[in-house]
């Protein structure tokens, strides 16, 4: 119980700390940035995968896929995975809060969502790093 008396009241906790020191503001900013990155990626992805129909029996598509399976692009895929997972799980957090879940404990919900991000990322990192190092997938 020592030190409890010195703790600032909840309402005053962030006063003077500056707007950008609050977890929720960073959550919001990263949500926007990851969202914008994903918009650009989606458009690029539609164009790239549509090369399957650019004449021939997928010759253009195969050469593009060969490029994107080089280790450096697989590593960049992992960066994309971080953006996707953060955006997805922060979105789940927002939808849960819309439904009234954890509205009194924002940080608990936020960090729980981030824990799911870390767990899912570990799976993708395992698959990708196995491929980068050994050149093989994890299932064959």
């Amino acid at each position, binding site marked *: 119980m020592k030190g409890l008396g010195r703790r600032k009241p909840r309402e005053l906790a962030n006063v003077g700390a500056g707007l950008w020191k609050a977890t929720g503001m960073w959550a919001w900013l990263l949500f*926007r940035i990851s*969202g*914008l990155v*994903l*918009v650009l990626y*989606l*458009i690029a992805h*539609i164009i790239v*995968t*549509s090369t*399957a*129909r650019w004449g021939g*029996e*997928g*010759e253009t*598509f*195969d050469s593009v*896929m*060969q490029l*994107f*399976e080089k280790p450096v692009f*697989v590593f960049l*895929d992992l960066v994309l995975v971080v953006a*996707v997972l953060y955006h*997805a799980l922060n*979105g*789940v957090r927002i*939808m849960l809060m*819309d439904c009234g879940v954890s509205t009194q404990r924002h940080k608990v919900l936020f960090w729980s969502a981030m824990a799911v991000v870390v767990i899912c990322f570990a*799976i*993708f990192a395992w*698959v*990708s790093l196995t*491929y980068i190092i050994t*050149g*093989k*997938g*994890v*299932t*064959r």
Partner: protein
Amino acid sequence: MVPAEKGTGRVKPAVARAHRGGMWAWLFQRITAALLIVCLAIHLLFTHILNIGQLGYENVAERLAHTSLTAVDIVLLAAGIYHALNGLRMVLLDYWFTSRGRARALAVALWVVGLALMVYGTWALWPWIT
């Protein structure tokens, strides 16, 4: 009489700003979000986790021969385009498209872009849809 400071009359309450995107857009953003989480998990599992290093025309065509996986791709295409462009609209509404006229022009422009992407994406998937 002191004249009102320029611009002060246009400040809108925070609540009105938060809902400026519209109720239906808000609802569809959440519906598409839920669809994207489910379909993206399937897409990433089958396309990238189970087939890493194997990607190519044959490999993708093999998967698209299954109607259910083609359906997942179509849902991803439609839900992804809507969710992406509506999200982009929500960001842009905060910065430059603040007046009603600009906001409407933005919405129209994004619908044109979105429908064009949808048509192009459907064309790319057409051999497997039919």
